[in-house]
């Protein structure tokens, strides 16, 4: 497999948009059952070569979008809000009358936000060791979305380089105000403070169930990720960072412990013993605070709050890595390997191989059919399957709702 070269994009993108991009389910997703011009009022933005940026693109139908994508072959696609008027006509509208109306609730979790607590990589780099942070983040947030916020339709997507995105698509949630979105982010936030803040997690009694559930998730990964992988108690300079988070009067005895795992055991035991001790501020949760500071998800509120915020579209190509932003299969989350995600180069190569093999079979098939089946011949197929399941989930929920409503009205 040849590595990805950004210079090859102009050549590869036309193939991508003709034969790989899943236009069908994509259009069904964003049509949301054909309700009130939803698709026509949606803003898309395209990034072309040389960073040329086109905002307020809108289309009359998914078919028109498909044609345009195949004509323009953008480097990147962003999805924006559903507006009060067609975005591509926004200049004809009275100033102030053109307003965003609805949008999915989105989250963007970026590995760079964890630089203060990971020692293996920094900034845009990721590795299999720190990728666990994303796994933990997805698990914690997804649980909260489903169990606490009652959300059903959410799509988790690999961003293509160093993080994950979440698209929450429930009908009611798409109507949420910016204030409510901000409140949701705050509900899901525990790590607070920037470079100046040493201790970023502070828990007080009583501890909200959300926090306890989150700690439960972190505990499943903590030993493997933090103690072995990141080795956070492995050396004096490393464990100083941890001790900085713990009340001074609880000194761990390092004597007998030989590695991070053992040291943590001692520390943990000591902290748990003190939990019962009556203190002025209430029980001490320092062990939880350490775990959360090293592992709890860090969200960017600005991405989630605004209705008009643009976010990279699923199945968009990352211009620097060539990787496709693919949906995550929550059933196989722990096995997800960002380095195994197909790049546009590898996909095109797979297509070449597949074509030379299967030419005889498709003799009688019509053009469009062959095109839509193309991604199925590649490693993109399982990801498209996940996406289709997501879209089908919403469609069947809509059908169920229609039946329920017509039952209530006594229609036949």
């Amino acid at each position, binding site marked *: 497999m040849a590595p990805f070269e950004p210079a090859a994009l102009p050549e590869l993108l036309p193939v991508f948009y003709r034969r790989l991009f899943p236009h069908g389910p994509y259009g069904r997703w964003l049509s949301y059952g054909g309700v009130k011009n939803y698709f026509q009022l949606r803003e898309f933005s395209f990034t072309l070569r040389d960073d040329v940026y086109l905002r307020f693109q809108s289309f009359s139908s998914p078919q028109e979008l498909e044609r345009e994508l195949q004509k323009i072959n953008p480097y990147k696609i962003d999805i924006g809000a559903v507006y009060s008027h067609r975005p591509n006509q926004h200049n004809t509208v009275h100033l102030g009358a053109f307003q965003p109306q609805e949008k999915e609730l989105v989250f963007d979790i970026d590995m760079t936000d964890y630089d203060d607590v990971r020692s293996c990589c920094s900034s845009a780099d990721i590795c299999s060791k720190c990728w666990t942070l994303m796994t933990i983040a997805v698990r914690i947030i997804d649980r909260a979305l489903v*169990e*606490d*916020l*009652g*959300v059903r339709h959410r799509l988790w997507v690999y961003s293509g380089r160093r993080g994950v995105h979440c698209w929450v698509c429930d009908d*009611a949630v798409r109507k*949420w*105000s910016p*204030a*409510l979105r*901000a*409140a*949701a982010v*705050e*509900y899901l936030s525990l790590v607070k403070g920037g470079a100046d803040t040493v201790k970023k997690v502070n828990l007080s009694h*009583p*501890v*909200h*169930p*959300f*926090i306890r559930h989150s700690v439960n998730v972190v505990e499943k990964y903590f030993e493997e990720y933090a103690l072995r992988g990141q080795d956070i108690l492995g050396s004096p300079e490393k464990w100083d960072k941890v001790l900085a988070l713990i009340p001074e009067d609880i000194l761990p005895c390092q004597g007998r412990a030989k590695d991070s795992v053992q040291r943590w055991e001692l520390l943990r035991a000591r902290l748990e013993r003190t939990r019962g001790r009556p203190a002025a501020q209430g029980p001490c949760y320092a062990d939880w605070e350490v775990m959360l500071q090293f592992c709890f998800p860090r969200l960017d509120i600005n991405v989630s709050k605004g209705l008009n915020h643009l976010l990279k579209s699923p199945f968009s190509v990352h211009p620097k890595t060539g990787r496709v932003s693919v949906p995550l299969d929550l059933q196989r989350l722990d096995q997800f390997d960002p380095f195994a995600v197909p790049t546009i180069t590898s996909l095109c190569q797979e297509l070449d191989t597949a074509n030379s093999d299967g030419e005889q079979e498709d003799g009688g098939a019509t053009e469009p059919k062959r095109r839509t089946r193309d991604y199925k011949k590649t490693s993109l197929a399982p990801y498209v399957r996940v996406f289709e399941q997501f879209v089908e989930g919403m469609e069947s929920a809509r059908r169920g709702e229609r039946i329920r409503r017509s039952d*209530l009205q006594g229609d036949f």
Partner: protein
Amino acid sequence: MEFSSRARLKHARLAGDRREQYPHSLQFYLEPPMESISLVEFESFAVDRLKLLKVIENLGVSHVRGTDVYKSKLESELRKLKFPYRALAEDDYEARRKDHISHFILRLAYCQSEDLRRWFLQQEMDLFRYRFNELTESLMQKFLEHANLSFEAVSMARERDAAGEPGGGGGSPPVGLADAVDLFRARKVFIKDGFAYVPFKEIDVIVLNNYRTKLSKALALTARSLPSIQSDERLQPLLNHLSHSYVGPDYSIQKNTGKISLEQIDALSVKSFPLCMRQLHRALRDSHHLRHGGRMQYGLFLKGIGLTLEQALEFWKKEFIRGKVDADKFDKGYAYSIRHSYGKEGRRTDYTPYSCMKIIMSNPPSQGDYHGCPFRHSDPELLKQKLQSYKIPPSGITQVLELVKGVHYQLACQKFFELTHDVDDIGFSLNHPNQYFTESQKLLNGGRELKKEFNNSGNFQQKNNSQESTNSSSTPTSSNAKADTELEGLEAYFTED
């Protein structure tokens, strides 16, 4: 099956079931009244509610909300004005109906500007808070269900592992996240399946937030109907009057006319005049002149305390002649306007002595003017100096300035009264300079003086009757004849097109 609430109400009205229309003493005022009411009822309901809201405003500053003294005073006012005061009172239909209708009328009057909307919202919130907190827990539940506070019935089969969690569960009603945003964001409440389970002690915050949001939106919506409201001939004069109205005795007819002698005025100005009039009197004595605004404000006040026309003419002439005006000029110019303000010349817009509200809100003084309200219009530093010159103790001055800072001008004047008369509690709610004078005289003379037999003409129609002029609009006199006219179609102002 669901009936819309409108259909249900109409049905109830037709069926004659009065209780169905107003099943609770409290409501969110979501549906405008759809019946026709007479012009007389329209006015009297509105005026009563305005009185109530002003009492609430005053109570809110003089007492801590929710204390026993606050509650008992508010309850007695509610009873006096015949509004619902106790949640349980069964046959409360008339009071609830009045509550409903008067609220919507005042919306029309108070949607008209940002300031008015803010004031109205604040008082209505306080009223709602009081009444909501007076409900028993079971009545509260009933009210919340009836109000359909955006929670759906959660089936009892749903497990809640909420026992012992912060923020309750076990009996708390589920509330939509949008209605409990602050509790939600701060993780102060148990959340499950998209609902917040708010313990009863926090529920009033949610309900109040909800009410504020609804009412604020409704006022904005009503404001959009403003042009049509203002061109509605039946309403425009009445509503204008309401939003600027002083509700109380207007001191237009005096029982003590002629009981004051000119020689007494200097002494009275120090003892019993409110600061605004004392200031005007002082300025008149010092410069032998007052500009128009000052002449109006002070002249009408003097009429209110009992100066006859002859006395007034003598008073002003003597003073003005000391200045640059000669007798001839006075007779030709100033005398005419004095006679005018006593109703002896032509027609006038309004010649009842100005109320505090009017003085505070209209015609602010400029350089060279001495009228207005010193607590409102004077620079605080200058005000402080003036109070010091009157030998008010520093602690008193501080209290007055605090009230001024809090924009409570009339309360500042009340405090001034208390400090200068050496009483702890003024004993009344100050609304009018002549009221200040009357009360002061009563206090100083041991109550021998005037009885409060002033014409209580908070009623717009009667006010017009007692004056010889009419307003620029011709409606009042004609509405007099049509006293039983029904007002219809007002609900259009409250609904979205």
